[in-house]
């Protein structure tokens, strides 16, 4: 049978893989701080003796789209959005630090400011602890967190959120959806990153672009299947010729 079926098969398989990535983007169209996954194809030419006629397709996720998403006003003092580039730093239970854009924070049992999944959000000197019986925190544009504890009119400064700006080229998405950067531990707050309290950043998935991509991927799959059917038809007629000549 013609070896073109295998080239068409890799095309169909990669189209399915890309559909899975588009499906993931659409499923996360309302996940705060989600960054769209980029799906791409890479051609892998088939080497060997004779003419290089075939190139297989390989689906890849070369990275993420780090464009800022729309922010929505929630009025919740525990929601913080980053304007422009930059990330919040959270600490995983095993001590490793990670980056996130999701600013829908809350407090945990110890009064620490934590991410929605319960990981402490780091300030310049460790987690930020909100004392009991204090007012709701007020977070400044530079990330300074202050509360009023009701005993004095002076605000109590609890710390400053660590807002970092790593090089997007060094960022990678880890299995839990958080981002990791090279030399993150050494990365200090960048004064150019601005935070905005009472807002939460949504997902930067463009639903319309993803829907169009989905249609494209579906048709690409169809085309590749059509090629497989063509190869099948060719092989069938070839078989027919053989049968005739034998007779």
């Amino acid at each position, binding site marked *: 049978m013609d070896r073109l079926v295998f080239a068409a098969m890799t095309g169909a398989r990669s189209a399915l893989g890309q559909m899975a990535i588009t499906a993931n983007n*659409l*499923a996360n169209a*309302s996940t705060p701080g989600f960054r769209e996954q980029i799906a791409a194809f890479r051609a892998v030419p088939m080497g060997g003796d004779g003419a290089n006629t075939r190139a297989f397709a390989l689906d890849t996720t070369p990275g993420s789209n780090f464009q800022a998403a729309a922010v929505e006003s929630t009025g919740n003092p525990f929601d913080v959005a980053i304007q422009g580039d930059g990330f919040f730093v959270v600490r995983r239970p095993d001590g490793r630090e990670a980056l996130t854009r999701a600013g829908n924070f*809350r*407090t945990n049992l110890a009064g620490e400011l934590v991410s929605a999944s319960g990981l402490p959000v780091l300030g310049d000197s460790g987690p930020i602890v909100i004392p009991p019986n204090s007012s709701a925190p007020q977070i400044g544009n530079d990330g300074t967190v202050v509360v009023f504890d009701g005993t004095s009119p002076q605000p109590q400064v609890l710390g400053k959120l660590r807002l970092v700006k790593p090089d997007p080229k060094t960022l990678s998405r880890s299995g839990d959806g958080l981002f990791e950067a090279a030399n993150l531990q050494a990365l200090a707050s960048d004064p150019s990153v601005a935070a905005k309290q009472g807002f939460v950043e949504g997902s930067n998935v463009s639903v319309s672009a993803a829907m169009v991509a989905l249609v494209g991927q*579906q048709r690409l799959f*169809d085309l590749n299947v059509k090629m497989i059917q063509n190869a099948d038809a060719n092989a069938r007629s070839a078989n027919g010729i053989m049968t005739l000549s034998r007779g």
Partner: protein
Amino acid sequence: MIRSLWVAKTGMDVNQANLDVIAHNLANASTVSFKRVKPNFEDLLYQTVRAPGSQTSEQTLSPTGLQFGSGARILGTTRVLNQGAMSQTGNGLDVAINGNGYFQINLPTGVAAYTRDGNFTQDNQGQLTNMAGYVVAPGITIPDGAEAVTISEFGQITAKVNGISQQLGQLQIVNFVNPAGLESIGGNLYIESVASGSPTQGTPGQNGLGVLKQGYVEQSNVSVAEELIKMIQAQRGYDVNTRVVRASDEVLQRLAQV
């Protein structure tokens, strides 16, 4: 069988859960002292099929990787504790807390529950109770024929009995390290949970606790407009995920025809 089908299913689940929460918030848009609930979503685990830089042969490295996300899930719900608007009722036994704190209610089971709903009344023994008839801690009895019951900002309850002004008791309120972690049990009541920490009692207006306002109740902090917009978003989010299901189905159908 095909990843996108299951990923789209998680997307539908998330949007459905979002609609459920919105429905609950809207249903309680005029419940006294209701605090709106906010669902939190996150992306599910990623499967790294090929890491960038992995070996493709002895001499070559893969220039790009392949990571499949497995969709989204609802992580949990948090209560947004913003103060609701104060509305004047003119009822002498209505009390609102302006600031931090919860009233303690003694449930008939002996368990302490907490509420910000200060829509109080009296039972047949003259005890101060909530609308369900549960006694408000520490248990204050308003004697028969008491007139002009006043509740001060700091919780002292006084009344005129037979023309003589008399102290009836002191309302205490409590607060928690993490009040958003209280467990809802319905009836505007919360109970202590591992996440909230244990209650610390105090006098209203002291150590950062709120003050009491007699004749007012705290309204729900649900913003109807905001919930309606979120509802549209959730519905459309559901729609696009069903479209992915359809596309995946068509792909499988095509495959079966080969």
